[in-house]
């Protein structure tokens, strides 16, 4: 019995070391001892109940697994965004605000009828005011029906005329239900050429562009709006300024 307790303590110590190593960035830690690892592996194989009897380690295992999975997803996301960059991220029809060489890029997938999207808008704007080292890339992902599609097309068409930022602001801060009349009126009030805007909204290039954005969103496992990709981190749902700033710190730290 005494011997068993000693063995368990020894294994606990080893497991802690191994988890600490696994949780670190480098999975090929130079200090890892293959013999120790094998010893732990063999012990856990022979005593599968060990982890169940020590729930704190299960939490550790889950945390490591989750961190690995998040890292894997981030890498896959980055690879996908790089592969599709010319089509949808850097495409001529993609509105982007902020310096192209900003340290962090925030890609926002949003819908102009989505309440959390609208709620996040002033929060993002507040961060943008105090942090000039950011680039915002706006992707229209209309998921709330026909009038959302209408507004998304209008936003892209407004971008063609160089009027995206103001038009986006009006749509994000407007409180009236979206209608064609409202959208065209808004564009006219901002000095956009409404006839050109309406023609651009029917341009197959614009329509196909929005389809490509949607395909990209689905490949990224985005299933709702708003969804943000802040650096390498995917954030589902609304963002407030405080949380965004925390994520920015985290992302910039990862760059160092």
């Amino acid at each position, binding site marked *: 019995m005494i011997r068993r307790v000693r063995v368990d303590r020894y294994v606990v110590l080893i497991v802690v070391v191994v988890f600490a190593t696994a949780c670190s960035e480098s999975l090929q830690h130079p200090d890892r001892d293959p013999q120790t690892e094998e010893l732990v592996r063999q012990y856990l194989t022979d005593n599968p109940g060990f982890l169940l009897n020590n729930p704190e380690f299960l939490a550790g295992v889950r945390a490591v697994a989750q961190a690995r999975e998040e890292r894997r997803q981030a890498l896959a996301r980055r690879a996908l965004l790089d592969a599709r960059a010319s089509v949808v991220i850097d495409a001529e029809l993609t509105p982007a605000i902020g310096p192209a060489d900003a340290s962090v890029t925030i890609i926002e997938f949003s819908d102009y009828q989505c309440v959390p999207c609208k709620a996040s808008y002033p929060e993002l704007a507040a961060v943008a005011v105090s942090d000039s080292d950011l680039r915002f890339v706006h992707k229209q992902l209309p*998921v709330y029906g*026909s*009038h959302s599609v209408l507004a998304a097309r209008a936003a892209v068409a407004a971008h063609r005329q160089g009027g995206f930022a103001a038009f986006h602001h009006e749509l994000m801060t407007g409180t009236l239900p979206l209608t064609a009349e409202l959208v065209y009126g808004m564009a006219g009030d901002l000095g956009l050429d409404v006839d050109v805007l309406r023609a651009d909204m029917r341009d197959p290039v614009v329509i196909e562009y929005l389809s490509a954005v949607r395909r990209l969103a*689905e490949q990224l496992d985005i299933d709702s709006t708003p969804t943000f990709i802040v650096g390498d981190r995917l954030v589902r749902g609304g963002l407030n300024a405080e949380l965004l700033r925390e994520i920015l710190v985290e992302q910039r730290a990862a760059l160092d």
Partner: protein
Amino acid sequence: MRHRTLWIFVLCAALVGAQPLAPSTGAIILASDYPSLSTEEMGHIRHMINLANQLDGDWSLMGNTPGGDNFDAYQFQIAFAAYALSLAQYHKVPAHRDLYRDASSRLIEKMIYKDVWQYWAAMSQYEKRGADQDGNSSVYREDGWQGWIDPNIKSNIMYSGHLLQMVSLHESLFDDHRYDEPGSLPFVFPAIEYGGEPLRMDYDHERLATVIYDQFVASDFLGIECELGAIYTECNQHPILGLIQYDQTHGTDYSAEVEQEFAETIREREFISPENHTTMFYLHVRSDEVIPASTKWSSIGMAWSDGWNGQAHHVWAPQYVKDLYREQVKLYIPGMFEGDPGSDMGWTSSFDFGWFAVLAAEVGDMRTVATMLDYADEHFGPTWRDGGLYYPHTPDYRENFNRDENGFIHNISPVTGNVLVAMTRLNPGDGLWTLYNEPREEKHFAEPFVSDVEYIEANVTQAIYDRDKAALIVTLAPGPVASDSTTFTVNQLDPSISYTIHKDGAQMGVVHSGSGSGVAGVTWNANGALTISTELDGVHSFVVAANQ
């Protein structure tokens, strides 16, 4: 505002429908002589397309049962939406393909989305849980873990049968062979929670059809298990319909054998009782015992089961099903509609209504159909959303099966509210029978058709090519986004002849591809298609008739 638009729509539809549209051939063509979609039918179609267009992973309005054997599982809503849209396209707007083709492929995409089929991976754990249909322990994993999480390879016909029917419908209705491509139906299972590597199971139309046919053979045509240890008649109808169309498009001959042998099974094993004419509950595989419908949850039978089985069975045994229906309708109607206030109708109350309504429409009992649709419109809270019409599921649909305080049906499940009532309304009578027994001929796909209609602003309520009169009839109505004007494209016109175009009964002009249009609002495209512009202040009908 919405009501005013609706009234304008209805009024204009009535006026336009009565106007003669005179083609150059001299014959009078009346738009009202051709099938058209009513406001409600169009609304149902839009709702189902709206659901199809939701992002992967967004199941808004569809309840909260991703996959599995619950009748509200997304797989059933997706599949029956595909069947309902197929009925609409085949019978009402056969010359309008792109909208329905794209919706069909979106629905198939959703069907192979992991949320929908991953239930079967959980099923593989049943051995550990020790429960089957009746709560008995069962050893079911003789094929091993990976074989079972493939949702098609063994059993699960309540999933794979629907997928086969959907894919076969897609190919048959749209002459679209994308699912014949190897790997076109991929099932990707990340499996991270099991510690394994991602697993990809590639399917295509042929593999799906043969895997299912082989299971019929392996079962000696007793039927394929729908879920753990249970064979249901209705589940096995869907793969049969899938095989019928697979045979039609691939020149194979699987379905005749399956129909003949499964009919024999139904007769010999009394899957449908010759005494009370109701469909069995299920066949308990381990005990080889037929569990009749009348022993569980219902003293008479199960309207949902009879409706579900009958609507599909009618495709290949129409008279048999019609004869059954005459008895079944007496069992369930009108007792279903009204009872003691607050009385418990049992967990199938909503499904009983939905699937039996679908059957009533298929066998052509239009009086019962009208009664049931009126009932739904009066008691199920019809709701318009983004141009779509549906009956929102009751918040407590998973647990409250009592009648309401007036004795009417309270429970509305997502499958009933989203798709089954819609399918009922969209079936003109014998609708599935005709679709499967009179498949599209090759020349249908070479005839003129309409495309590129702006979905957010226009509804296509008529689109049919009259081969005898060499005329395409198209009617557009305003959609959810108001627009002064819209355009549509007419494809596959014969470049060697001229066409006379009529709008709302008045001749717009004569066009010939070689000499330009010369008609205001009409332009020839480089690819030989014709684009027609129209104001969209109400309903407008067009006839594009060949001058032979």
